[in-house]
C-alpha cells in the first residue's frame, strides 16, 4: 500500500458562476495526511468531491498512482472511500446490517469482521440496534467502522470529527494514525486540526 500517490494538477472548478477552485495543485503520498482548512464555503467539500470524480472539473487532472483517474474510474473508486457530512446509514437497519451491505459491495465480508470493526470504533454495544435509535455521535462511530472495513489505501474525509466528543476525536486520530502507519493516505477537510504526529501531516488552506 505504501508507494501510493494521489496528485492533482491545475484544478479549475466552477460552482454556478463562482470560480471555486483556481488552478489548484496537490500531491499526497502513502503515509501522509493532507488537512484541508479554510472558512465555510472556501471549497473544502467541493475539492474532495472533485478529487473523487463526483464534481466535474472544467480543467485540470487528477492522478492516482501516476494514472489519470478518468481512464479507470471504477478502479480508482475501488481504491478509495469517501465519508461525507452525513453517513449514509439507513435508519431502519442496524449498524451491523448497514455496514455488512456497504462492505459487501466491495468484497465478501464476514459478520465477525464487521463486528470487530464496530468494536474497534466503540460501536460494538449498539451495533445491532436500529440506527434510528442512535445519537448522532453513535452513528458517526458506526460510519467510522466502515472506513476500517473498506480496506482501501485512500481515505477522503469531510469533517470526520463532526458530532464526536473528545474521546471520539481521539478515536479518529487513532484510526488515521493506524491507517497512515500502514502506508495509507488520507485527505481530510477539518475545522480543527487533528492530533496526528506532525511529521505525517501537511496542510492546505483553501481560504488563502
Amino acid at each position, binding site marked *: 500500500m505504501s508507494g501510493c500517490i494521489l496528485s492533482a494538477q491545475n484544478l479549475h472548478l466552477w460552482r454556478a458562476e463562482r470560480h471555486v477552485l483556481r488552478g489548484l495543485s496537490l500531491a499526497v503520498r502513502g503515509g501522509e495526511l493532507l488537512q484541508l482548512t479554510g472558512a465555510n464555503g472556501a471549497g473544502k467539500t467541493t475539492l474532495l468531491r472533485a478529487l473523487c470524480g463526483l464534481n466535474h472539473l472544467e480543467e485540470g487532472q487528477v492522478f492516482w498512482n501516476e494514472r489519470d483517474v478518468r481512464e479507470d474510474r471504477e478502479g480508482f473508486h475501488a481504491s478509495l472511500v469517501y465519508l461525507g457530512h452525513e453517513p449514509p446509514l439507513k435508519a431502519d437497519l442496524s449498524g451491523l446490517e448497514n455496514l455488512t451491505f*456497504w462492505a459487501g459491495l466491495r468484497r465478501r465480508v464476514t459478520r465477525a469482521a464487521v463486528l470487530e470493526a464496530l468494536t474497534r470504533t466503540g460501536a460494538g454495544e449498539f451495533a445491532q440496534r436500529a440506527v434510528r435509535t442512535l445519537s448522532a455521535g453513535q452513528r458517526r462511530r458506526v460510519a467510522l467502522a466502515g472506513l476500517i472495513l473498506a480496506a482501501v489505501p485512500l481515505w477522503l474525509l469531510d469533517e470526520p470529527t463532526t458530532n464526536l466528543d473528545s474521546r471520539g476525536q481521539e478515536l479518529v486520530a487513532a484510526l488515521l494514525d493506524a491507517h497512515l502507519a*500502514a502506508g495509507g493516505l488520507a485527505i481530510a477537510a477539518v475545522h480543527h486540526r487533528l492530533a496526528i504526529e506532525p511529521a505525517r501531516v501537511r496542510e492546505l488552506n483553501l481560504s488563502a
Partner: protein
Amino acid sequence: MAQSPPPLTAPLAAARLVITRDLMLAFRRPEQLLHPLAFFALVATLFALALGPERATLRLIAPGVLWVAALLAALLALEFLFRDDSQDGTLEQYALSGQSLTWLLLGKTAAHWVLTGVPLALMAPLMGYTLGVPAAASLGIMLTVALGSLALSFIGSIGAALTLGARRGGVLLSILILPLAAPILIFGSRATELAIRGESYLAPMELLGSIVVLSFTLAPLAAAAAVRISLE
C-alpha cells in the same frame, strides 16, 4: 490489512445485494407498499363513479381503466424509487463504490418492481372483477399487468433519476414518462382486452416483452447517467 484480500464483488452479486437490501428495507415499513395499491383501487373506483354502474359499459372500458389506473399508481410509486437514497447520500456512495452504477440501479429498479408492480398485478384482477370482468380472465390480467409494469419501472427509473432535486419533480416526472409509456399502455391494454375476451393474447405480449427487454438493457444506463448528473 488482510493477507490477500478476498476478490472484488462481481456486478451481478452487487446488484443482488442491493435488491436484498431494498426488499429488507421495504418490509421494515410495509405500510408504504399499500399506498400505490390504494391509489390504484381509488382511480378504478373513480371511473366507475364517473361512468355509472351499468355493467356492460364498465366491462367495455375495463381494460383501459385498469391500465390507466395501473400507470398512474406506478407513477406515484416511482417518486420513491430514488428519493430516500438520494437524500441520505446512498446514491453518492453507489457512484463511488467502484461498482458499476448501471448494475446497482438495475438491482434497485428490479426490487422496486417486485414491491410495486407485482402487487399491482396481483390486485388488478380484483379491480377487474368489480368492473364486470369474468374471473376466468384473472391469470391473463395478472400476467399482462406484471409484464407492463416491469417495463414501466425501468422506463420510469430514467425519469425518476432525471427529476432528482428538480422543482415539482412529481408532476414533471409524469409529463416526462407518460409519452414514453404510451407503447406500454397500447400493447398492455390490448393484451388485457384479449385476455378478458378469452382469446390468445400472445401477440401483444410479445411486443410488450420486446419493450421490456429493450428497457431493462438500456434504461439503467440512462438512469446511471442521470444519477451522476444529479450528483455533480
